């Protein structure tokens, strides 16, 4: 944070804009100074005079001179972001909140389940796990998307498939003639995976409906509440536990989350909305 003001962003230059899909773009940002975050923590990106929105960086937390956010066009701020071409200056505040519990993943068979743009925050986790491969048993990454055009990070998928400890499975709701992998909603992949559930921890990020059905399925498969982690998306404004917009029961998602263990939140009202 610049000076002492939690509301004042530091500046970052947009170095590059990458088209990931018809609705998703990535923005490579160069902050005015080194920027540290833990995987799963989020930042606020401010467009000057326009608005601010929260994003979990999709880049590696081990890189500190640049960071990347991957943004789906869903609202006013994201629409304006999609009009950027590179060279612009944005503001960033953060990092905020509690990220993925890396230490809980060590020595485990990690199941990573992503839906749609939920791959973005998970890519940062995958980068982190890739760098620490020796610490985990294996990583199974299941990714579901609407259609082949909306499948993001193709090159990274291919890279991950090279690693012995990584298994990658993908599915789309609607396939076309080019598609050679699974077809159906993200949870169909769970029938195909080969993990030792007793020694596994699952991390799920995606649209609410996808997270809801994934959790149901994981519980049926034998995962306990304590072994499922979710990254929650809520309306946010301040990101520092004051404005109240992100409240979910007694939690401030911005501060206590965004990553929660399922048993922490399962009784809170309307968690899938």
């Amino acid at each position: 944070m610049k000076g002492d003001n939690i509301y004042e962003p530091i500046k970052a230059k947009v170095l590059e804009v990458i088209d990931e899909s018809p609705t998703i773009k990535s923005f490579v940002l160069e902050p005015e100074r080194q920027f540290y975050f833990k995987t799963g923590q989020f930042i606020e990106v401010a467009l000057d005079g326009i608005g601010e929105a929260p994003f979990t960086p999709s880049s590696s937390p081990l890189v500190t001179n640049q960071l990347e956010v991957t943004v789906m066009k869903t609202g006013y701020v994201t629409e304006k972001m999609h009009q950027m071409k590179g060279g612009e200056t944005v503001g960033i505040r953060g990092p905020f909140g509690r990220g993925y519990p890396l230490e809980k993943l060590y020595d485990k068979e990690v199941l990573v389940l992503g839906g749609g743009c939920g791959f973005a925050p998970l890519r940062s986790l995958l980068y982190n796990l890739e760098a620490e491969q020796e610490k985990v048993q294996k990583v199974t990454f299941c990714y579901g998307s609407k259609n082949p055009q909306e499948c993001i990070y193709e090159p990274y998928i291919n890279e991950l498939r090279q690693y012995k400890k990584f298994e990658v499975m993908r599915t789309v709701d609607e396939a076309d003639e080019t598609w050679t992998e699974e077809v159906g909603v993200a949870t169909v992949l769970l029938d195909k995976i080969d993990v030792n559930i007793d020694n596994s921890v699952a991390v799920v990020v995606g649209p609410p409906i996808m997270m809801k059905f994934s959790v149901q399925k994981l519980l049926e498969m034998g995962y306990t509440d304590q072994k499922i982690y979710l990254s929650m998306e809520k309306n946010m404004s301040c990101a520092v536990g004051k404005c109240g917009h992100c409240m979910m029961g007694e939690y401030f998602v911005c501060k206590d989350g965004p990553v929660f263990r399922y048993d922490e939140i399962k009784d809170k009202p309307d968690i899938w909305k």
Partner: protein
Amino acid sequence: MLTQIHIFFILLCENYNNIMNNYHSISRQEWEKALSHLINNYHIYAPVPWGETQDYERIDDDSISDIIYNRPKPATPLKTFFLPIRENVVNTEKSDKKRIIMGIPSCDLSGINIFDEMYLDDAFVDPTYKKKREDSILIGTDCHTTQENCHCTTYGIKPYPMKNHDLTLSLSGDTIYLQTHSAKGETLIEEIEKITTLQDPTENEIQEIVDTREKVEEELNTKNRDLPNYRVTGDLINSSEDEIWKKYSETCVSCGACATICPTCTCFLLLEKPGFEKVRHLDACQYPGFEKVAAGEDPLEELYKRFRNRYMCKYVWKPKKFESIACTGCGRCIEACIGNINKNELFLELANK
């Protein structure tokens, strides 16, 4: 060797001495003279008549004699001094003078607790709030009368200042009694002593202040004896069914008056101003879309859920997370509601089920 019990007694005696010594008295006329001097160095705010009601105004020489003493309560809560309707939180306004805020009822002073806990939280100190707190001298007031909906004592708050005040003020006949509670308060007393002479009240006079306090407290206890206390209210709300919220929200129009006027509602919205500045606006979970996300999901889409949310927040969730209570029993939300919704009727109905 000093045992813990000894130390306890010493502290107790010291406290007691303090209580005896920290009273000062002054005639109303001399007090007004002192205020007129202090206006040169401070911005002084105090409750003055506002038609049928009263509210805080910046005091000048002409309005000093209009100040209302010991009669609750200003229409707006104390929080508006620290969380104004709108303010730039990056390019902050610099004030040339510190503020003295007078006439603050105990409920409003206690309402600041939750703000201090949230806004001065170690991890993220809110700089604008902190500065405003530091630059304000708070003069609390003993409530000598009560309003129809006052129910502070139900939630453990006395009708005389308990916390966050630098001085307490009590007017009896034509004499003003001041009691100091902090270093800031003492400094102000010293300043007043440079302008005029302060007296030491007699034991009888002090006893009279204490008696009045107890009388008003008793009055409130009697008046509100059927209302469930803070904790019980939380339990009742937590285990309630949807029906009662649907029933009581029938006349709610989502205007947010209850939250705006509430001394403990802390929510706001940040808006961007060119130059990477941020303007903070008071906000309320009663407005549609408060929790809506860009992708469209909205946990508080239905009106009755928004209506219930405010009570869940105050009596169930905030108590799980914070020490400070999130309802002070000031009754303003009852008076402000254009739909005539009375939360205490709702709680009594829950309690009697």
